[in-house]
């Protein structure tokens, strides 16, 4: 932590921090110089992440104070404890030594005599602490430090206590204590007492004597559960030169039931002292080879645990001894070659097979650190395979081939299927056109073409086939390759039907006029704009719904039809009128806004706003394109109607009275139009037409041809009945609907339907291929 490393050079409790020595889960340890005493000390700073934890801090301090009171040669001395500059600290004596685990690592095998000396010290220190009621809870070789003078000192008192003493019970992934040396009752979360420390002493002793952990497993849980459940291992099975009494003492210390252990550290210490004295005695009287003395051992009560009994242990031991020609003496100071091991279990080491003291090990034991959890998924190792990425494994190749095969099968199938449907519906339309009659009613025209049976080919048959084709289209949506083409197929069927109905004489797929349409500039611009909106809606939007896709696709088709129709008007838009220009630019803006809405993340679920905007845009473009026709018609009618005389009448007088009553004086001019109509209002259509004929002959003999006569007379009728405004509305109505009205009328001369069909065919094929290539991504 940066704030911690900056501590170097600062003063904490009169100590100048020199450098960082170690760092652990609880905090960092610094070497420091005590200014007043001019002495090197060790300062431990509680990790800032725990400094906020009031209970942890409280325990940290209480425990440290208790240790400070102890002042035992086998416990690291605490000089001061408290809080300064926001840091909780403990000032301890600085020991220029190494921990027992480091020592084991360095020397591979440690002489038993030396180990016993060290552990006697540890036991004395522990006993002092226990008398104060302090439980260490985390005794392990790395918590035992050895001074250059060969004295063992216990480190890290009570800090591990923090976790399980806390009432609020913080969640954690770490158990207080180290898995390799933990007492069963501690691992089970039961109340523990000083005897838990004795278990850890036993386990640590086992480890330093043999170089093996008492229990090993592929993970912490397994190790912990072995502590709880598995029979106590016999250290003598691994290290042959271990005195019998020590092996039994370790096993007694490691009893599952605290009652079966030595009850205090003092008792253990006394036992060690006594047995070593006896060993020495035996050595002196020449009984060195037989370290086992059954008589002596009977004082040690080893209680039956699981499968092993004291008796079976002894028998095993005796058997082992018999294989063992010349044992080394128990207190031998020779260092047999053993591999290095670290109590922490880090960067682990080849461990020995049960060695006969001087043999080099050859077998490697598994350690907890080496076993990794099942690798479920590594995001970094296996980057996402994005669309289009080509991978080269055999499986992928096989998949590629499979996709290719699917393409080869399904795309031609789709082409044939779509072609067949188009042909069928076109034929149906063609035949239906025969039965459509302008003189019959709407209902007749809707029904008759499908059920008429007097002509060949039989309509009923064709209708049946068409219905079957529709069913097939729906059924095909269950095939994955076709699943996204259903809508396209349905639209194709409909367009093909219309094409058949209206263009019976045009050869199939003729696209002669396509060029003319595409290069009409301003419509092309609109087309591009809506095409963009469609593309965005189909590809880019987050959470794109099926509806959005369909909407986008249908809008573009709609726009194309409109653009195509408008291009056939052959009348330039009326760009002289400001409102028309404004409408055009507004519609462009609407289109852009629609595109923005479809693309933006904020309104990803909204479809109504872009839909409305697109419609407004389309309407604007439509008004713009038809404005030329409307302007022309309107201009013509202006010349015409201004020359009509209208006599005043009784009705005019009555209108004037109504106006007076309503107080409308200002709009007199508008109401004057009604005056003009009065002359004609009571006449029937025949009379009206006769009147119009006479008027047109008189005023503009060349203006009206027989074809345009009904149209102009219609406008005039509106003029006489509703005035100028009504007539203009009629003109606009006509202009707006003119392209559509003329579309089907002139169907023989245009190929719009076929152009659409070709487009749909391409879309359908593309979406079919896309589905096969990219699956759900399309």
């Amino acid at each position, binding site marked *: 932590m940066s704030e911690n490393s900056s501590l170097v050079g600062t003063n904490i409790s009169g100590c100048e921090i020199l450098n960082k020595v170690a760092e652990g889960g609880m905090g960092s340890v610094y070497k420091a110089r005590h200014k007043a005493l001019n002495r090197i000390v060790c300062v431990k700073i509680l990790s800032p992440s725990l400094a906020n934890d009031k209970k942890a801090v409280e325990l940290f301090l209480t425990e440290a104070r208790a240790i400070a009171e102890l002042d035992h040669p086998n416990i690291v001395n605490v000089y001061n404890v408290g809080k300064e500059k926001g840091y909780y600290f403990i000032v301890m004596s600085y020991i220029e030594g190494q921990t027992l685990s480091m020592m084991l690592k360095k020397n591979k095998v440690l002489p038993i005599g030396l180990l016993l000396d060290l552990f006697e010290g540890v036991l004395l220190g522990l006993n002092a602490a226990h008398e104060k009621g302090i439980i260490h809870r985390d005794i392990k070789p790395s918590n035992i430090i050895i001074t250059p003078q060969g004295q063992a000192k216990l480190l890290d008192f009570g800090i591990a206590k923090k976790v399980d003493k806390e009432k609020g019970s*913080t*969640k*954690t992934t770490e158990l207080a204590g180290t898995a390799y040396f933990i007492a069963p009752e501690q691992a089970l979360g039961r109340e523990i007492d000083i005897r838990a420390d004795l278990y850890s002493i036993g386990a640590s002793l086992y480890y330093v004597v043999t170089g093996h952990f008492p229990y090993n497993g592929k993970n912490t849980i397994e190790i912990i559960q072995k502590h709880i*459940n598995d029979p106590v291992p016999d250290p003598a099975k691994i290290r042959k030169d271990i005195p019998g009494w020590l092996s039994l003492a370790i096993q007694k210390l490691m009893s599952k039931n605290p009652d079966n252990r030595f009850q205090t550290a003092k008792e253990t210490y006394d036992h060690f002292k006594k047995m070593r004295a006896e060993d020495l005695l035996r050595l002196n009287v020449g009984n060195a080879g037989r370290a086992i003395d059954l008589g002596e051992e009977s004082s040690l009560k080893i209680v039956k645990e699981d499968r092993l009994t004291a008796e079976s242990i002894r028998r095993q031991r005796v058997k082992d001894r018999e294989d063992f020609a010349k044992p080394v003496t128990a207190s031998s100071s020779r260092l047999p070659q053993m591999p290095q091991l670290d109590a922490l279990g880090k960067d682990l080491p080849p461990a020995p097979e049960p060695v006969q003291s001087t043999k080099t090990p050859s077998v490697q034991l598994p350690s907890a650190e080496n076993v990794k959890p099942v690798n479920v998924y590594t995001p970094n190792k*296996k980057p996402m395979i994005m669309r289009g990425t080509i991978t080269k494994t055999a499986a992928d190749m096989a998949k590629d081939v499979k996709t290719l095969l699917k393409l080869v099968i399904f795309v031609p199938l789709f082409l044939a299927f779509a072609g067949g449907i188009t042909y069928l519906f076109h034929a149906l339309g063609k035949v239906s056109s025969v039965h459509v009659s302008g003189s019959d009613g709407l209902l007749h025209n809707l029904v008759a073409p499908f059920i008429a049976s007097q002509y060949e080919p039989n309509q009923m048959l064709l209708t049946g086939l068409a219905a079957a084709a529709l069913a097939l289209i729906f059924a095909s949506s269950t095939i994955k390759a076709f699943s996204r083409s259903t809508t396209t197929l349905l639209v194709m069927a409909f367009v093909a039907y219309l094409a058949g109905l209206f263009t019976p004489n045009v050869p199939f797929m003729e696209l002669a006029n396509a060029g003319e349409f595409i290069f009409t500039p301003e419509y092309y611009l609109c087309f591009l704009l809506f095409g963009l909106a469609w593309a965005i809606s189909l590809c880019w939007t*987050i959470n794109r719904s*099926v509806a959005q896709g369909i909407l986008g696709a249908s809008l573009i088709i709609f726009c194309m039809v409109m653009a195509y129709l408008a291009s056939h008007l052959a009348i330039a838009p009326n760009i002289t009128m400001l409102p028309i220009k404004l409408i055009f630019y507004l519609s462009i803006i609407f289109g852009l806004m629609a595109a923005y809405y479809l693309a933006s993340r904020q309104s990803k679920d909204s479809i109504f706003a872009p839909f409305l905007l697109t419609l407004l845009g389309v309407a604007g473009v439509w008004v713009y394109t038809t404005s030329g026709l409307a302007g022309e018609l309107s201009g013509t009618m202006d010349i015409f109607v201004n020359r009509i005389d209208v006599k005043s009448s009784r009705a005019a007088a009555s209108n004037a009275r109504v106006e007076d009553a309503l107080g409308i004086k200002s709009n007199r001019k508008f109401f004057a139009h009604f005056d003009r109509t009065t002359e004609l209002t009571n006449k029937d259509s025949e009379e009206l037409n006769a009147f119009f004929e006479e008027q047109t002959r008189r005023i503009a003999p060349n203006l009206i041809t027989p074809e345009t006569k009904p149209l102009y007379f219609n406008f005039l009728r509106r003029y006489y009945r509703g005035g100028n405004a009504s007539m203009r509305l009629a003109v606009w109505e006509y202009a707006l609907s003119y392209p559509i009205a003329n579309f089907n009328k002139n169907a023989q001369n245009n190929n719009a339907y076929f152009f659409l069909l070709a487009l749909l065919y391409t879309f359908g094929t593309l979406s079919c291929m896309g589905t096969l290539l990219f699956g*759900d991504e399309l």
Partner: protein
Amino acid sequence: MSSFDIEFAAITDIGKIREKNEDNVLISSDLGLGVVADGMGGHSAGEIASNIAVSVLAETVRKVNNGKLKIPPTFLPKLDDTERKILMAANLANAAIYSTAQSSEIYKMMGTTLTGVIFDKNFATAVHVGDSRLYLFRNDKIVQITTDHSLAMEHVRRGLLTRAEADRSKIQNVLTRAMGIKKNIEFDLLKFPIKEGDVLLLCSDGLYKGLRESDMARILHTGRDMAIVKLCRSLVRESNDKDGQDNISAVLIKILPAKTITFKQRLKRFFHRG
């Protein structure tokens, strides 16, 4: 999407003594997803860890649904799509927490539990790590679907402790598995069929420390006609009254018969991705 109509409710409560709420819950009816995460770690690391867990999980599921993120074909190909989706989302969430934890000393020890359930057709798929729980309440019986990844429960599984002992144990809060501690962790993946009338309860340890399973069953039974949000609230409130030592979170999910939808809803659904 599920073939049932599914109602979700979620509540998280700080409890009586904690200064922070380290739990995070998430429900999303359009994803068909309910998640509970219980964070751990000093400072505000616990909150951050659990927040990352639920948000990355939901966001990944959403991305996969939209086709914005493709599950690599090599990723556990034997599982079905929903399982792969939720498992990948959980793995990505773990990676996100782990990298955040490594980025700063303050966050170093942070981690979180995660219990999430996603619905698809007639099945619920649960992903689980840590000591949050998923209960299934069916025919007035409550069953714990997930197994806690706590040391106490590990012991129970091996028969070293009884269930009752484990509930009182001090090592109950020692997790054996949690998100954010390691780069790769194992998740429990459970898939089970759901039925009409089922109630699923996802909860953090705060809830079940205050309420015994019989209590939960009683509340769920008496409140079976209540609005699900109210029911969820009463569960949390009762647990808080009895214990309240920890943050309490609950997600309640009720499986209702697929109801006939109105024209307006149908229209709405048509314009929204399912």
